[in-house]
């Protein structure tokens, strides 16, 4: 299994510095779980961070705060608790990598899917991020991704199956960075249903969903 589509260096840099919001970071971190090459780039970017810290000429201070720190340490007990057990897949090796699986709360087979129409499903993933939305999408094999519009950036990370559009074929671990200028009509590849993580910075509007909401009201 090879990954052909990687996050841009800008995205990796924003993730490294901490500037990238939580929802976007889930997509980058989940790609990193599957991509040793991009983890290597993150290693370099973190080394640059270390190098920049080394290069700072710090001002001298009378009270450097170390005594206050010691007092805090003596009061505090070591709070390194065991992490909560991770959601396991019922069928051996999970499909959703960490950190995504913990955000969803289960593996792909137990996702509480909501119907989007035309055989597609979605599941909104709760995050603390108010500026971007994370969701899982499930597109039936061989079918087009429901038409949608978005402003700004959209990140799509394939987790199972594959989709293709004018820019190429995207399989497990591949990440597509699309801005509003990219006109594309992705189709899920035949074979497996395509499950992917999609991050958008504006409320994503599925036309079929809007149509379904308006339908009963229009009495048609």
């Amino acid at each position: 299994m090879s990954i052909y589509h990687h996050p841009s260096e800008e995205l990796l840099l924003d993730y490294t510095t901490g500037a990238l919001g939580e929802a976007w970071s889930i997509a980058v971190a989940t790609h990193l779980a599957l991509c040793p090459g991009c983890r290597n780039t993150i290693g370099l970017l973190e080394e640059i961070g270390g190098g920049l810290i080394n290069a700072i000429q710090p001002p001298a201070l009378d009270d450097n705060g170390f005594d206050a720190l010691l007092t805090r340490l003596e009061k505090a007990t070591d709070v390194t608790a065991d992490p909560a057990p991770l959601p396991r897949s019922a069928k051996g090796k999970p499909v959703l990598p960490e950190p995504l699986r913990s955000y969803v709360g289960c593996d792909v087979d137990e996702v509480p899917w909501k119907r989007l129409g035309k055989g597609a499903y979605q599941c909104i993933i709760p995050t603390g991020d108010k500026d971007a939305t994370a969701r899982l999408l499930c597109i039936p094999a061989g079918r087009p991704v429901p038409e949608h519009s978005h402003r700004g950036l959209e990140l799509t990370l394939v987790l199972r199956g594959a989709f293709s559009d004018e820019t190429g074929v995207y399989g497990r671990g591949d990440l597509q960075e699309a801005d509003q200028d990219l006109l594309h009509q992705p189709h899920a590849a035949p074979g497996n249903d395509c499950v992917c993580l999609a991050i958008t910075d504006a409320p994503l509007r599925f036309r079929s969903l809007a149509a379904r909401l308006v339908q009963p009201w229009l009495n048609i």
Partner: protein
Amino acid sequence: MSAIFAKNSDGAKRQMDHLLTAIAERKDKDAFRQLFETFAPRIRGFIGRQGQDSDMIEEVVQETFIRVWNKAQLFDPEKASASTWLFAIARNTRVDIFRKSGRPTPDANDPTFVPDPEPSADRLVSRAEESHRLQKALSLLPSDQQEVLRLAYFEEKAHAQVAEDLGIPLGTVKSRIRLALGRIRSELRDLR
């Protein structure tokens, strides 16, 4: 202490590695004090631009070193230098405290995690050399490239904000960052 370290000598860097190891192995408070005296002012500089609330900055510095104390046994001098490890901890602390949200990371123990290929022997012995060359490459960058890197790292600014602050087009910020990373990479190419 810091005056010696400001020279960025390799000896001083190795000493920082030893201090962390001493904290990990025997909770050595003298080592912790030395590490703090060297790095606390730098971490303050790293998070303290932009005229942020000084109490908040101090909170990030203190919390960073509490984590350093508790996690020192996770430091692996074969994998990263002390300053890189401290950068990562300070960055995480800053995100936690200023943004009050987590920074999702992969979990190397998860069954889906795709492990690194076996490291080659020459890669393992060259970490100190790599860190030395990186420092040199950083100091040789043109000032406009250094400036965008500093803004990105120290002020946690996404590219679009850097562009706005400097009053230059986003494309210029991206190309300066790309040039800077390209120079650093070419300096390290035969090592990675």
